[in-house]
């Protein structure tokens, strides 16, 4: 494996591939710097894209930007759920509960309803911390369960939390939700309903920091421990890992990311109500990370972004398009109502043709395409002992 075949001599794309290789080497060495640079480029390009023809026809730049910040919320959620499901291999079907907890934490910390007005930065920390606490509280008794059972318990938790917020009317205003939340208050920046830019930039910063932290976690002792538990829990324990605390940590960090997203979302919408956090949200996020490529940080982020944008923009445009063209049956369909059908279709097609997701991690790609992998690289070394290799 060490002796990779030398690059083809005098090929046409040599200059480009060399440049690519240099970029890759730089990215490997200075990962955090390259994440910041990459995100800066993305954040700069997106608003420009929104004014270029194919996109500018759909909606105005302001609407696009506002949509991007909403998509950012789902990117955060996908990144957090990826820690739990993708890295540690714990199936969590009630992830929206932590989103709700973060959002309500903001409602209690910064709204006329509670009479408090804590600074936004502090609320972000509090929201993340409160959600993490609930993550630990849910995790402690349930993480000894395996696979399917854990999924059922988390599903229940995801149902219970919005129902509690719905029924504890005395403290949560029930269905109406808590409204009039304060906008973020960051020095020198004014956040208003009409100007989407501050939210957009703030979201870009939050996502950048989150991606950076998660990348660092993934390539650390903790990240390896999660991966080991996902691979084989008994062997992990026999290697000296405290599986309980390691899984709790994954749950807590995943939940805290959702809490963060909840705080941002609440401050942008200035309203929290239980119907924002129903189980469909959990399933959407799960679908996003599966489609995006579970385990790959950029993959799930991109997956969430693309899917959210498609869901919010493209489906609406489809309606308009078919109505304008007047295609017989399609013009009467409201595609937004069928988004879960489309999710389902996309997932089924995905599992058939590209089970590792749109943007798979190298690891998972190898996992799911082991047969194709035993090509030129491995053959030399496996030679002679292929007969005994387990498979």
């Amino acid at each position, binding site marked *: 494996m060490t002796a990779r075949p030398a690059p083809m001599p005098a090929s046409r794309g040599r200059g480009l591939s060399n440049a690519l290789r240099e970029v890759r080497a730089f990215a490997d060495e200075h990962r955090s710097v390259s994440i910041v640079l990459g995100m800066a480029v993305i954040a700069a390009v997106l608003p420009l894209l929104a004014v270029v023809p194919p996109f500018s026809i759909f909606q105005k730049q302001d609407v696009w930007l506002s949509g991007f910040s909403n998509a950012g919320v789902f990117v955060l959620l996908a990144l957090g759920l990826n820690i739990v499901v993708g890295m540690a291999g714990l199936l969590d079907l009630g992830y929206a509960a932590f989103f709700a907890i973060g959002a309500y934490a903001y409602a209690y910390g910064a709204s006329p309803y509670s009479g408090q007005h804590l600074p936004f930065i502090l609320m972000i920390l509090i929201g993340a911390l409160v959600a993490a606490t609930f993550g630990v509280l849910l995790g402690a008794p349930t993480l000894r369960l395996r696979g399917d059972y854990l999924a059922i318990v988390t599903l229940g938790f995801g149902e219970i939390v919005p129902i509690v917020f719905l029924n504890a009317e005395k403290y949560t205003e029930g269905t109406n939700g808590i409204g009039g939340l304060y906008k973020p208050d960051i020095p020198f920046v004014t956040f208003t309903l009409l100007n989407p830019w501050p939210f957009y930039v703030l979201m870009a910063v939050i996502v950048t920091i989150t991606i950076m932290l998660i990348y660092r976690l993934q390539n*650390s002792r903790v*990240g390896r421990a999660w991966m080991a538990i996902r691979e084989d829990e008994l*062997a992990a324990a026999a*290697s000296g890992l405290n599986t309980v605390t390691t899984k709790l940590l994954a749950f807590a960090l995943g939940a805290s990311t959702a809490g963060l997203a909840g705080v941002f979302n609440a401050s942008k919408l200035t309203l929290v109500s239980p119907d924002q956090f129903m189980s469909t949200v959990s399933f959407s996020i799960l679908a996003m990370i599966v489609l995006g490529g579970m385990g790959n940080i950029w993959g799930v982020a991109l997956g969430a972004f693309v899917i959210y944008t498609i869901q919010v923009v493209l489906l609406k445009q489809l309606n308009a398009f078919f109505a304008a063209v007047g295609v017989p049956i399609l013009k009467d369909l409201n595609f937004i109502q069928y988004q879960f059908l489309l999710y389902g279709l996309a997932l089924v097609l995905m599992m058939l043709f590209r089970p590792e997701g749109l943007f798979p991690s190298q690891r998972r790609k190898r996992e799911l395409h082991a047969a194709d992998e035993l090509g030129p690289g491995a053959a030399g070394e496996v030679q002679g002992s292929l007969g*005994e290799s387990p498979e």
Partner: protein
Amino acid sequence: MTAARAGVPLVIARNITKRFGGLVAVNDVTFEIPEGSIVSLIGPNGAGKTTFFNIIAGIYDPTGGHVDVRGRPLIARPRNSWREPFVWFAPVLAVAAVAYAGYVATKSELIATAIGAVALVVLIAMMLSSVARPAWYNTLLARLGVFKSARPNDMVKAGLGRTFQNIRLFQNMTAMENVLVGMHTKLHATAFDAMLSTPRNRREEVDSRVRANELLALVGLPGRGDELAKNLPYGDQRRLEVARALGSDPALLLLDEPTAGMNPRETADMMTLINKLRGELGLTVLLIEHDMKVVMGISDRVTVLDHGEKIAEGTPDEVRRDPRVIEAYLGAPAA
């Protein structure tokens, strides 16, 4: 082979019994592993070898008996576990009493609520400790006379490393990562170290990779760190499992059929490796093995189990001649 170095036994398993429902898998087995020796456990299929092995490794709790490592009892049936809930509730009750006293004295609801919240946090913290079982919690339990059997990760901390009968590597991780996971207990970077990329984290990442490379070279896989574990040939996977077990710097290495499914050449290599580990690292080895050539060639002492009971113990030569052993393996001679 050389005789065992005289010394205190590293591990003593006394009167170990394990029942699964009505089946007695291990029955009253006493077993000593002297420091620096290679000890083997043999027996026909279903004799209870692996069960016994798993008890020592902390995977099963024994039904009776106990295992001591360096004289410290680590594994036994739980004792006085009814006292544990007191550890959870006593501090809460104390805090609640203070809250009530404060409320009576000052009539301030705020103080009472605040202390009440503290009580709740304390309760949650104690409950969590009972799940995560940090060191201080175990000490606290020991003070109260409560005994809880060690978990596999506690046994690793106590100095036991193990391999599995059917290879259980982290298949989709590289060889290097497998060894790094094995070194988990020797590394100390927390999630915060990793997220903030502290100097400690960076130093540890570099040092641990150097060490992992050394271990890979030691077991005979030099420079193969970047290969996925599942892409390694079978014999190398076994070696990698040994390297992973060595990651925690164990004093005792538990090898469950290390040469199962190997060809004669690989088997010979594995024997050399085991001898080398004892020679170079001063490891003690407990071996379960079916291959008699390996057992007889490498062991200082051999213990024979049959139907969960110990039927013979001694040097390889003594065991080989023992009529009960011959009977267990070949059946009783026709009368």
